[in-house]
């Protein structure tokens, strides 16, 4: 966030976003953070076996989600994209069903948390296999282009570590060959579990690789949701117009351990992590919106309590829902009933 001004209602680059949209972005960031924390709490309480953490990714995800056209675009995310999923319409209740592994979860309690699948939202099913989703996104973008669907684009996301996978390179290459309507968004949090960026690539800028594929590469501050929106919106509009793919890199940071099963104290110092907290996008964006007169301090507090209430209500409701039945293990292997021996 560039603006450090104290002047209320001072002008700032808002990329056409209305006050309502700015507040919606902030609310998505709040819900994202609250639900990630809920995942960790439930894990520590012994109520769920596993949760991942997106703290530090709120701005890049909420900003990108605002550039997604609901009911039209396609999102092919990765496992750390809870904020993006929320930003395109996923509800806290669905998130809690996923965390608890309940039968009503999108995967029927089969998948790790935050692996959703909703045709209604345009949200593709993903595995946990790093970068495998990027070629699916390219295939979907090919279909959109083949059918000459106007004004529709695909957004696919991944971490910095994912950009080392061969499949990631194949996806960008093919998208460029066919000038597909797709945006590749890298959420560069500087870590891939315990491997720092320097162990992942010979130079630290993912966006620079775009040139090698023949597409624009855009660098954006991933802690600034407005800037992210601006960059992703421009790239999505370009894709929707038939202008081809773009690689956007949002630089952010992972404040917590990789997942509840990881302990980041084993590979990075508290000093490093604490020093980065000054960039925490959730309090920073709140302050920014208040300073610029978009939000009042009272409204902000109200919003926080309503988000907490919503999270609590979703937690109680989802926890009360049943697990899948043992017999559910056997459904949806193929269409129809199934035996390997006929």
């Amino acid at each position, binding site marked *: 966030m560039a603006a450090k001004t104290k002047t209320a209602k001072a002008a700032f680059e808002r990329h056409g976003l209305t006050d309502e949209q700015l507040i919606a972005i902030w609310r998505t960031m709040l819900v994202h953070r609250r639900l990630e924390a809920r995942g960790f709490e439930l894990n520590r309480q012994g109520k769920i076996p596993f949760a991942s953490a997106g703290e530090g990714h709120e701005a890049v995800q909420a900003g990108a989600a605002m550039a997604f056209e609901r009911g039209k675009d*396609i999102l092919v995310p990765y496992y750390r994209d809870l904020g993006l999923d929320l930003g395109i319409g996923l509800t806290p209740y669905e998130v809690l069903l996923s965390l608890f592994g309940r039968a009503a979860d999108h995967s029927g309690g089969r998948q790790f948390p935050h692996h959703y699948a909703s045709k209604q939202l345009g949200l593709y099913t993903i595995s946990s296999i790093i970068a495998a989703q990027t070629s699916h996104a*390219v295939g979907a973008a090919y279909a959109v282009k083949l059918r000459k669907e106007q004004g529709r684009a695909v957004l696919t996301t991944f971490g910095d570590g994912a950009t080392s996978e061969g499949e990631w390179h194949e996806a960008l290459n093919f998208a460029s060959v066919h000038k597909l309507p797709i945006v590749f968004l890298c959420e560069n949090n500087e870590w891939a579990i315990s491997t720092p960026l320097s162990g992942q690539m010979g130079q630290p800028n993912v966006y620079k690789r775009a040139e090698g594929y023949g597409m624009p590469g855009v660098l954006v501050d991933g802690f600034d949701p407005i800037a992210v929106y601006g960059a992703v919106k421009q790239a999505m509009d370009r894709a929707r117009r038939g202008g081809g793919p773009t690689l956007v890199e949002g630089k952010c940071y992972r404040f917590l351990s990789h997942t509840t099963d990881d302990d980041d104290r084993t590979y990075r110092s508290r000093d490093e992590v604490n020093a980065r907290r000054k960039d925490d996008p959730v309090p920073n964006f709140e302050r920014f919106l208040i300073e610029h007169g978009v939000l009042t301090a009272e409204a902000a507090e109200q919003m926080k309590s309503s988000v907490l209430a919503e999270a609590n209500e979703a937690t109680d409701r989802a926890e009360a829902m049943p697990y899948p039945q043992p017999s559910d293990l056997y459904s949806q292997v193929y269409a129809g009933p199934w035996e*390997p021996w006929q």
Partner: protein
Amino acid sequence: MAVAASTSKILNNVEAVRETLYEAMKSDDRTVILGEDVGNRGNVFLITKDFVKEFGEERVIDTPIAEASIVGIAVGMAMEGLRPIAEIQFADFIYPAFNQIVGEAAKTRYRSNGEYTCPLVIRTPYGGGVRGALSHSVSIEALFYHVPGLKIVAPAFPADVKGLLNAAIDDPDPVLFLEHKKTYRLIKGEVPDGHYTIPIGKADVKKQGNQLTVVSYGLYVHWALEAANALEQEGLSVEVIDLRSIRPMDRGAILESVRKTRKLLIVHEDNKFGGIGAEISAMVAEEALFELDAPIRRLCAPDVPAMGYALPLEEEYMSSPAEMADAMREMVRF
């Protein structure tokens, strides 16, 4: 099985694949073909020759040489409502796509609880006896038949090729469609005109007999038939079952035959350890052990990485009709 037209023509396996793909492209504009050299050249075996002229390069896609994404992109197309037919130029080069086939395509329906599906066909030429050396002759079926969520077919006769390829294209789940290279132009047969399907998972008794059941698929079905027919002259009666489908497999057909002949020989070109024959042997042992009059026998390739380029190294790896006849004779007389 849809009723086929009463007319038919003689085609080889290449022509059967070609005709079926052509009809699929013609009848459904959601169908796309993607792979290396499928457009400009029309596939290395000329299976899709001139398709690009008729259907355009948007639907007959010459991809970069990138097998993982050939399948991955096809998975995305399938999830988005197209009916992709992906080609891996030779089965020997399918390994980079293992991730997408096993980790993604086979689990799409399951992991989304049916929200997304993956109606995808992956065609690939496989098999040896064509002086293909280490990297143009492998069998890959055993690497994939362990995987729930996939279907695998390996027809040997032109009419089966057409019926099963149509079934694979119509299928709502991913199907690996294996085409034996040596049978491509060698094997000719009558193929009904018009659209028809053969159900995936149904074997076919290609020759009746009552002293021994031989189960095989692909090129070796033809060699087993040659051997079994020769043994008729010696008064030996051998039944030959063509599996046609490897996953699912036709338990009923195998058991019915074995219960009649009381002896089972499995022949396949792929190596023995952990091969398709192992699963068939286990199933028959579980279901019909005490109805057998002889131990189950498997005649398969040796446990070496691949057949060689030099003729003796290829011949040593491959079986032959004569070797099959010897095994059949021994088993009948056991």
